[in-house]
């Protein structure tokens, strides 16, 4: 198991490096100059100094390693320092956002909680809905429950989130007036009243994400259950007189969860990137919103950082999925 994990890790690190290079180069070669919007009265030498101060004068490779060092060491340390209050923040330059002139890391730290709440709850509820539906659908294959469940999950992942979100706004905030259509990040939860307001405003974005995730996961769950229900060990379990409940919920479910757990792990980063759209619909000012706004105004350091964070999330969760699969299913370790 240890060598297996090491081998996966040995592949993950170069992947991250190559992705960082791609992200860096793509935006580095981007047309557009950060000094272009400065007044034309600035003399050329001063403009050169400004460019040098922004770190633009040096060769690409130097800038890449400098960026990588800031990205991989300086910014995380600053983020940890800001979150815990420890005095570990190193001195030296940081990645500055071109739109706000403040360190990118600080903005990201402000944005992460909103994204985590919305995305996390959306995914959690999605899983909680999907697993029972998948189990029942598979156990009663071709029953009316299965037929409806399969159809709804097909609709659920065919209808794009930007349409479900808009329909939810239309029904629940325009017509019924139950929930606000915009997410108010300034809301502080201090008492029961503000807590309820927080719940009301988070319901719709979470519901949109939960619906989408549930429809995908329930299909996997159903397929995986169906694969297992016809296996010999199920017949054995029944033959030795176990209760049907035990057979399905202990023997079959546990085995069916193996691929589903890895699918869930792999899906987490996609949910983050997919939440870009949900955040736009409900005006949640999370990480995705920061990315979109940065793209609108060509704030490339911000775009690079957020894209890189997404890339790290993908590689990390792929690694977690691989390792989890190895732990749950010893057959695939081959070591």
């Amino acid at each position, binding site marked *: 198991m240890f060598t297996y994990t090491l081998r996966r890790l040995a*592949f993950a690190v170069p992947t991250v490096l190559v992705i960082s290079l791609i992200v860096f180069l793509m935006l580095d070669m981007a047309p557009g100059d950060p000094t272009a919007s400065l007044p034309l009265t600035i003399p050329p030498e001063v403009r050169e100094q400004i460019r040098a101060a922004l770190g633009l004068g040096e060769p690409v490779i130097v800038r890449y390693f400098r960026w990588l060092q800031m990205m991989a060491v300086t910014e995380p340390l600053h983020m940890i320092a800001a979150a815990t209050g420890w005095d570990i923040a190193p001195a030296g330059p940081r990645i500055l956002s071109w739109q706000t002139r403040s360190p990118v890391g600080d903005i990201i730290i402000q944005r992460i909680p909103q994204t985590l709440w919305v995305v996390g709850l959306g995914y959690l509820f999605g899983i909680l809905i999907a697993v029972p539906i998948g189990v029942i659908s598979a156990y009663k294959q071709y029953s009316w429950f299965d037929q409806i469940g399969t159809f709804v999950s*097909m609709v659920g*992942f065919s209808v794009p989130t930007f349409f479900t979100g*808009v329909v939810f706004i239309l029904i629940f905030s325009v017509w019924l007036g139950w929930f606000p259509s915009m997410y108010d990040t300034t809301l502080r939860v201090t008492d029961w009243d503000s807590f309820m307001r927080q719940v009301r405003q988070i319901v719709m974005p979470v519901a949109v994400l939960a619906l989408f995730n549930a429809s995908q996961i329930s299909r996997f769950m159903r397929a995986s259950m169906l694969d297992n229900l016809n296996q010999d060990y199920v017949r054995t379990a029944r033959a030795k007189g176990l209760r049907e409940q035990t057979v399905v919920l202990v023997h079959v479910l546990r085995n069916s969860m193996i691929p589903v757990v890895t699918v869930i792990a*792999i899906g987490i980063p996609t949910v983050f990137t997919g939440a870009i759209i949900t955040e*736009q619909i409900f005006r949640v000012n999370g990480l995705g919103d920061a990315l979109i706004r940065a793209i609108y105004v060509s704030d490339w350091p911000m775009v690079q950082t957020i894209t890189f964070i997404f890339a790290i999330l993908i590689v990390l969760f792929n690694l977690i999925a691989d390792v989890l699969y190895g732990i749950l299913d010893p057959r695939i370790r081959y070591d």
Partner: protein
Amino acid sequence: MTDASMPPPAAPPKPSAPPPPPSRPPSSADDVHDLRPPRNQWWDVWDQFKTHKGAMAGMLVFVSIILFVTVGPWIWQVDPGLIDIRSRNLGSSWTHPMGTDQLGRDLLARMMYGGRVSVAVGLMAMLLGIVLGTLIGVLAGYFKLLDAPLMRTTDLFLALPLLPLLLILVALFRDVLEGVFGQAMGVFTLIVVAIAITSWMQTARIVRGDVLALKEREFVLAARSIGTPSRRINTRHILPNVMSPIMVSATLGIASAIITESALSFLGLGFPPDFPTWGRILYDGRDWIEQYPARVVWPGVFISLTVLSVNFIGDGLRDALDPRIRGR
């Protein structure tokens, strides 16, 4: 799951590969009773496909949508860009079946022209993605030397955050391509290419797996022993046999390409405002949702119906192309 470094399954049970193309002579003793004339296997596929109700319904809806966007503008000859400020924000009526927008443009005409672009983007991006994926899959599966580098590249692409990268690609290269191809064609080319280069990986993996299994089969050995060059072995013997998975992923590719294009338009990074696509109409209608909900519902319904129907077709196709199910 994402592990392509796993050694290829040496000989996986692959009943989904149809029998080799040179049809068997019906002379062997077992086949004496089977005197039906030889039948193209695609007829069997079609027979199986017909039994899938969802797929047939999806086919019907998809064909209707295609007719709506292709033939529709000939029947409903209204200029989608015609601004008639006096008749703005109208509801449904005989003159404007879907109403008009804030500039008095007819929504039905805009839906038809928008659908053209959306469906065209979906089809083109799918085609390009499939060609790319198949090419890489066949090269990686057939030539041992190329396998490792190509599959590492595939893994790398799978680890990229695709939606952010798409957004960046569009934001970065829109102006460049608009200068080369003109405004509409520039954005069209950019979006098609961008979607294609971020969606070929699954196809490449599936095709590689199938090619790896196929190239060990006797008919490939036979072809090689009579001196068929590699290129022709691939085009004549291997490619026809990996058509099934390619067709399924092509179908699903249309659906995801249409969703991606709409999402880009929805985020304001797709086609320019005077160039309607379904996603763009939805995006423009969002600001008016409280007063005129129809303006977001129509494009949303059309996107969803298209994707849903394509997904159902894909489901039916997958069943129909699986010989384990076919004929039962």
